[in-house]
């Protein structure tokens, strides 16, 4: 009887810990996540294609996320497949990267670092330099 009581107590404590942790994670996310900046922002988007040829697009924009900025960039064309994580970019400026054929994909960088978000949720802040690079996974 006492053992059963102890066990239910432990489960209640476990549930309480879980709820506290979920709340803590939500707070950490809302405090530390990369936030978009509203207002006029000056950014560059550089596309490096299969032949290492670079095209740079400078734009002044008010958009919050990279996808919208890419849509605003004149001359930059892109397409892909919509997924639960947003648009998975497959074609940029007419060049398609097909991972299933040769391990190729379009890698996204922001200020020299790999983007941690998909283009639909990658925030845009003033002065950001985005790079979209045709990359081949050599292991494929």
């Amino acid at each position, binding site marked *: 009887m006492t053992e059963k009581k102890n*066990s239910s107590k432990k*489960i209640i404590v*476990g549930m309480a810990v879980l709820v506290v942790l979920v709340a803590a994670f939500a707070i950490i996310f809302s405090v530390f996540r990369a936030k978009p900046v509203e207002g006029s922002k000056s950014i560059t988007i550089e596309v490096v294609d299969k032949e290492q040829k670079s095209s740079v697009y400078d734009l002044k924009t008010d958009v919050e996320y990279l996808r919208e900025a890419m849509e605003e960039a004149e001359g930059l064309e892109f397409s892909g497949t919509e997924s639960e994580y947003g648009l998975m970019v497959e074609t940029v400026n007419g060049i398609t990267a097909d991972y299933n054929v040769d391990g190729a994909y379009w890698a996204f960088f922001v200020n020299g670092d790999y983007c941690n978000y998909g283009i639909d949720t990658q925030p845009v802040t003033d002065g950001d330099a985005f790079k979209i690079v045709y990359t081949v996974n050599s292991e494929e």
Partner: protein
Amino acid sequence: MKNRSRVIKSTLDITLIGLMVAVIEASKIALLGLPNIELTTFWIIMFTMFFGSKIMFVIPVFILLEGCMFGFGLWWVMYLYVWPCLALLAWSCRRQESVWFWSVLSALFGLFFGFFCAIPYVVIGAADGGIKNGLYAGFTWWVAGIPFDLSHCGGNFVLMLILYHPVRIVMRRARTMLYT
């Protein structure tokens, strides 16, 4: 005769290991469209509880299969330690029978999944620019994925809560049929 029974037992074991991998893989593919809602955690816990050490063969085969199907990227390195850690955790708690206990454990595993998976980013970042850079890289990567960890946590909790009792009954029966 003794030899024959050992062969039959090992054939049975191999078949069972194959079946367990197939169940995990089929469930995973069936739920691919839902972000971080998966049954891999549930099956690894249940298989560890009921078939003990056989999970040591199931997990490597499952991880290898995943790599062959989806490519050997950085996520694959994470799989190498995340799933064995779960099996170890489940094995150490195998005497627990409460559905609430297993639901909370599954939920915690889902919640911390991104945290554990950030380890390779810490290592890569540290190799590139020192430990501070590594911790920053790991932290930003983990924070970016917290919404997915929260859905992973909720999904694991609900799935374990719903499936634990019915699957437990079936698996208990299966174990008795196969090994007695």
